């Protein structure tokens, strides 16, 4: 296995061929934010929070899908990148209707944590405020589109780990929505195994376990799909 040495934020680090910048940063305790990234399932580079600068190139690259190379010089944190990340996070809040005070994920929401890390104090961009549905048809779980940021962790975990492929996305652009089977209510899905993995991996409160009120999260009480990491190593992701 070829080992590459590179710099991230001025620090000399090493990683093996095929690893992503994100992986190597993580191993070396350098925190690069990301909401669609989840170890153990395929990366898609879509939330754009993990963008970094590489060797003075004007084009930003997503750390989760960019493989390391010998001598790479990566800037993962500077003022400009922080500003862009703040703007992208703000967009995620404004795209749908996030009201943290009445969200099941309050205090253990990855989006909320990120906004705190980035020092967000207020919104400046236009609000989109669409009217979207809440699907409570499943006997165990609920889906609140107001809180969905379309990271598609649920789609990937259902396809790649559970093998059911209940979830996919429908429509496009701002109309994009998570949907089950042929756009049916979750409770009517013929393919759902009610395994709950999608709920476990949801970074916000979009997918939640019924009967657990605001702020009483599920993740603190159960291990966060620990075998995902094993899966990642086995598949060489």
């Amino acid at each position, binding site marked *: 296995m070829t080992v590459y040495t590179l710099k991230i934020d001025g620090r000399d680090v090493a990683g093996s061929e095929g690893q992503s910048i994100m992986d190597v940063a993580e191993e070396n305790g350098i925190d690069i934010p990301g909401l669609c990234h989840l170890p153990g399932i395929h990366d898609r580079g879509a939330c754009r929070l993990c963008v970094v600068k590489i060797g003075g190139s004007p084009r930003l690259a997503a750390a989760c899908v960019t493989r390391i190379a010998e001598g790479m010089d990566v800037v993962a944190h500077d003022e400009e990148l922080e500003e862009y990340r703040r703007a992208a996070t703000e967009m995620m809040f404004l795209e749908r209707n996030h009201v943290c005070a009445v969200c099941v994920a309050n205090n253990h929401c990855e989006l909320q944590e990120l906004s705190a890390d980035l020092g967000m104090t207020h919104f400046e961009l236009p609000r989109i405020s669409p009217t979207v549905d809440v699907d409570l048809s499943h006997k165990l779980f609920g889906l609140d589109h107001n809180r969905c940021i379309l990271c598609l962790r649920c789609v990937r975990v259902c396809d790649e780990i559970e093998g059911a492929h209940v979830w*996919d996305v*429908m429509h496009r652009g701002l109309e994009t929505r998570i949907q089950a*089977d042929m756009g049916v209510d979750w409770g009517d899905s013929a393919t759902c195994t009610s395994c709950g993995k999608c709920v476990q991996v949801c970074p916000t409160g979009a997918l939640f376990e019924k009967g657990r009120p605001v702020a009483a999260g599920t993740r603190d009480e159960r291990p966060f799909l620990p075998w995902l990491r094993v899966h990642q190593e086995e598949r060489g992701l």
Partner: protein
Amino acid sequence: MPVLHAKPAPPSDDKRWKIVETRMRRMGDRPYALIEALHAAQEAFGYLDESALNYVGDTLGVPHSRVYGVATFYSYFTLKPQGEHTCVVCTGTACYINGAKEILAGIERGLGVKPKQTTPDGKLSILTARCLGACSLAPAVIVDGAVMGKIGAAELVAQLEAM
């Protein structure tokens, strides 16, 4: 590669399913035939209903949610039957600066339908296109397959009303 699923039967004995089936078989009934199969089904039936989506998905071994995702991604595919007549208004740049906006406004005023809507009597569907490539005829519309160029809103509405 072993086939893990049995090939399903067409939703009905309508002969048009044969066209769809042949198109899929020619591509080895593999998942990458999905868009071609949807084209075939829409050409044959005019739109894609749930039975068509299920049949295509089951034949090609594509999960239903993915079939639905693809069918709703592309604006060419429609999941609802269209009106008896269709009028496609081009909203490409050349048509836009030559008055496509006025045409759509005129249709809405005169006939009470907006783009992607069908009149309540099911007679006429209004659609828009992102450039038909008929820029020399701007503003252009297509009524039941026939291109009409350099047309004014009043003239068009009168023609549509007469149908």
